């Protein structure tokens, strides 16, 4: 096995072009597990940890451009106010050791439906910047993942960054696991309220082949908020509306039975999480929290 260690983004892209079968390595918290379990034996690994450009985040066009190599610990410490949903999700990832190594880019690279960073990206309409020596393209996160552990990356491409709007309102994330820490999601739910745009964003994790969006729940809630003038009045959201939102979120999932939980439980818990996260977010918006 050959390990390439580019020290610049240009070198990294050149290496990927030259070795299209090479597997990139960021924090290694997914890749090394795969290697240890003998599930993968790449001939070439491209270690991206020395590429400084990947480990930076910056403001671009009023949004955040998050380098693919930024780890969870930094997302929590540095971006909690600008990307609160992603920061809450980051806090639920693994243990301190994993959060120190694991990256959002790696979570995308793995493209597991259980990746905890993905629902907040979906809920906030993140766009993924993919790069090759031949150029750069940007794809919406929902188009990035195409099946469990499969994505649209071309053999010569690397994930450069994630583009996300800065939060304009409350964001939430909630995740079910069968123990109280260090656990892979049985189901998860992310919510973004965007008051200036009067829009609602959702993301569902671990309850479908890819992270999903609960479009009908979003439209329903937007309708209620508009019709009742609640964006402006910041008035109370009816229990019925919260329940209906939960139900629609639950119905948007496409879960399976597996070792971590049953499809029925996943559907059920999504309804509860959607209702609770909405209540928390709305309370925050109303300033009562």
């Amino acid at each position, binding site marked *: 096995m050959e390990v390439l260690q580019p020290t610049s983004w240009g070198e990294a892209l050149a290496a990927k072009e030259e070795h299209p079968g090479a597997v990139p390595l960021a924090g290694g918290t997914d890749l090394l597990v795969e290697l240890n379990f003998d599930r993968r034996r790449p001939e070439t690994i491209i270690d991206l940890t020395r590429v400084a450009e990947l480990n930076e985040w910056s403001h671009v066009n009023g949004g955040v451009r998050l380098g693919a190599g930024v780890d969870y610990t930094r997302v929590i410490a540095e971006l909690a106010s600008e990307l609160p949903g992603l920061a809450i999700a980051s806090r639920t990832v693994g243990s301190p050791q994993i959060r120190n190594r694991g990256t959002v880019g790696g979570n995308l690279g793995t493209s597991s439906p259980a990746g905890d960073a993905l629902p907040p990206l979906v809920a906030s309409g993140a766009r993924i910047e993919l790069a090759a020596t031949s150029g750069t393209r940007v794809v919406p996160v929902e188009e990035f993942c195409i099946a469990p552990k499969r994505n649209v990356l071309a053999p010569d491409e690397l994930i450069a960054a994630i583009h996300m709007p800065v939060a304009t309102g409350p964001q939430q994330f909630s995740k079910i696991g069968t123990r*109280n820490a260090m656990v892979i999601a049985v189901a998860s739910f992310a919510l973004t309220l965007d008051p200036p745009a009067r829009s609602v964003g959702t993301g569902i994790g671990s309850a479908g082949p890819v992270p999903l969006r609960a479009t009908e729940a979003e439209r329903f809630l937007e309708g209620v908020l508009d019709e009742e003038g609640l964006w402006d009045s910041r008035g109370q959201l009816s229990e019925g509306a919260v329940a209906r939102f939960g139900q629609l979120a639950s119905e948007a999932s496409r879960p399976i039975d597996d070792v971590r*939980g049953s499809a029925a439980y996943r559907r*059920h818990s999504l309804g509860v999480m959607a209702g*609770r996260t909405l209540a928390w977010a709305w309370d925050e918006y109303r300033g009562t929290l």
Partner: protein
Amino acid sequence: MTPTKERTIAPPVRGGVGTSARRQDSVPKVKGEFAYSSDLWAEGMLWGATVRSPHPRAAIRSLDITDALTVSGVHAVLTHEDVPGRKLFGMEIVDQPVLAWDEIRYEGEPVALVAADHPENARRAADRLRVDYEELPPLVDPERAVEPDAPQLHASGNLIRHARIRCGDPAVTADVVIEGTYETAMQDQAFLGPESGLAVPAEDGGIDLYVATQWLHVDLEQLAASLGLPQDKVRITLAGVGGAFGAREDLSMQIHCCMLALYTGRPVKMMYSREESFFGHVHRHPARMHYEHGATREGELVYVKARIVLDGGAYASSSTAVCANATAFACGPYEVPNVQVDALAVYTNNPPCGAMRGFGAVQACFAYESQMDKLADALGMDPVELRMKNAMSTGSAMPTGQIVEGPAPVAELLRRVKEMSLPPAGHDAPLDLRSLPGGVSNTTHGEGIRRGVGYAIGFKNIAFSEGSDDFATARVRLFAAGGEPQVEVHSAAAEVGQGVGVVQIQVARTELGVERVTLLPADTTVGSAGSSSASRQTWMTGGAVKSACEAVRARLLERAAGELGGSPSDFSMEGGKIVSQTNGIEVSIADLLGRDSIEETREYRHRKTYPMDPETGQGDAHVAFAFAAHRAIVDVDTELGLVRVVELATAQDVGKAINPLSVEGQIEGGSAQGLGLALMEEIQVSNGRIRNPSFTDYLIPTVLDMPPMKIDVLELGDPEAPYGVKGVGEAPTISSTPAVIAALRDATGRALERAPVRPEDVVGLTEREVR
């Protein structure tokens, strides 16, 4: 033989019995410098790998090793034809192939071995072995296995043991009758150090094996038989053990590693991966238990009827003894006049099951304690009061007819946990997710939470039962170095993390009044210590070290009498000196010994036990019993089914705490393992296949799942035991599972008849099929 009847009062010595003396292995373990078996290394060593069956049941049509042999770096590919001696092994019943030849009985069964210069090459070669399997439908339902027309997995049939208790009147009736069917899942010991060891071929044609195990001498007997070597050509040294909990009682890689070393003439190391480890050791028997309890309206137990089916999996391992325990302890620590128990251990094509902490008592305790709660409910009685009313005590008769002789503080333990203060209700402000169900995953900020309280008590035998010749050996040497007396203790007791090392040191310090005690590595050049299991090692090896020390002391006093005149009984040992009680003359041990040393080896045996009658279960099968009670307090998110155990409180009689800190460690660890079975630990097996062989999906409690404990340790000395000790290790594992689940029932009102309880069960999405 102890020459002095009255124990000479030894002078106070630091770090003796009853102190939390520091363990010899604690600092290196904390610093990460402790050498575990997986760290072993020898010049020129090869790496072994195991080829395992991907099918739970299959016939082997043919085996072709030619391709595997062509992989570069490969030194050997061995099959059943290469087993030099007995082709089967097993601790109680010799039924398990060293390497399978005709039939595969479980997924992961070893079929061939490879040795190569690098683990990677060994694995590559293992992939190239060609085995032509004819897959057969696996027999996975233990109830089906005992039906007459079921396929027979072994020549002896599918029934490993049917143990019974017939006590009192089988036709008796009662005012109040309740029934229930309960299940416990297959739990894994989940030790952190996977199976590993190093075998080194010796010049005399024998073998030296360094391995993490629980009982060196039972390994040795089985190794010698299968290697076709006389026992004195097999030498085993205990390597650093990363936990055991029963999973190292059966052989795993021992014979395989030695076969490869003998064949290649090179040292061979084997080390399982975590995934392989799930296939490489036995697990806790899953159990299906149907119970019927009858009681008077006042809450006095009239009868218990129980049928317990234990899935032994493909091979017997210790199923017979697990079955005996499930039977003997089927009714709990209660006085029950009329008892009918049938417990079956059966073969299936599921993973083999055997020893795990609590050993048959765990499964039964979940069922009988669930029944006691159900009965209390039916009677409108407080569940603790019902238990206290029926509690056994010293002098009570077990359903097996055995009279409980030692301390049996059942009511006292219950009273103590009941009276402990309750933690405050409600939640910390500001909100701390770590104190809520779901933890840091942010699932509730207080919504849906209900608190529940549950109680349970359990008990279990200490040491080996049913007539086994259970003994432990220790050698103690007293000598002087640099003008100071020193002691060397040698035994084969396996330090598996429980602290039996420091216990031996503490005993020697107390008995000989000498602080400088060294423990030699555990190996087979000294006699057997028996297994580090059955909560027996402090009692048994502690007892052996104590007897050996007494013998050394007697010889020392004789020597003093010889040199100084008088009789040995005139002398006592005080602070490294021998002092005459008659004339005050004293001599230092160092001067008295000069260059000589005094060495004695002793075997310690507990009192004799007897088999349970096969028809009635009657018999004095056990040496002594350990009791523990738990109170669990849980917060349950009733909408999501997530749980936070707020507190576990326990009271346990340990007889005598030789090392109080170790005792606490055992109680916390054992309680955590029981909590794990209550809430998350399950090897999920579907059609004979393990679906979650990794720590990604086999979950064990984290620090956010295991709450702080209140621990009340009683020291009611057992008159039969050295210093009055009772085993500590297993009792906490037994009652914590039912206590936690009782608390969940209290919070949710649901039946929760299966451990572990999943979130699905708590929210009522699963109505379990009860058979």
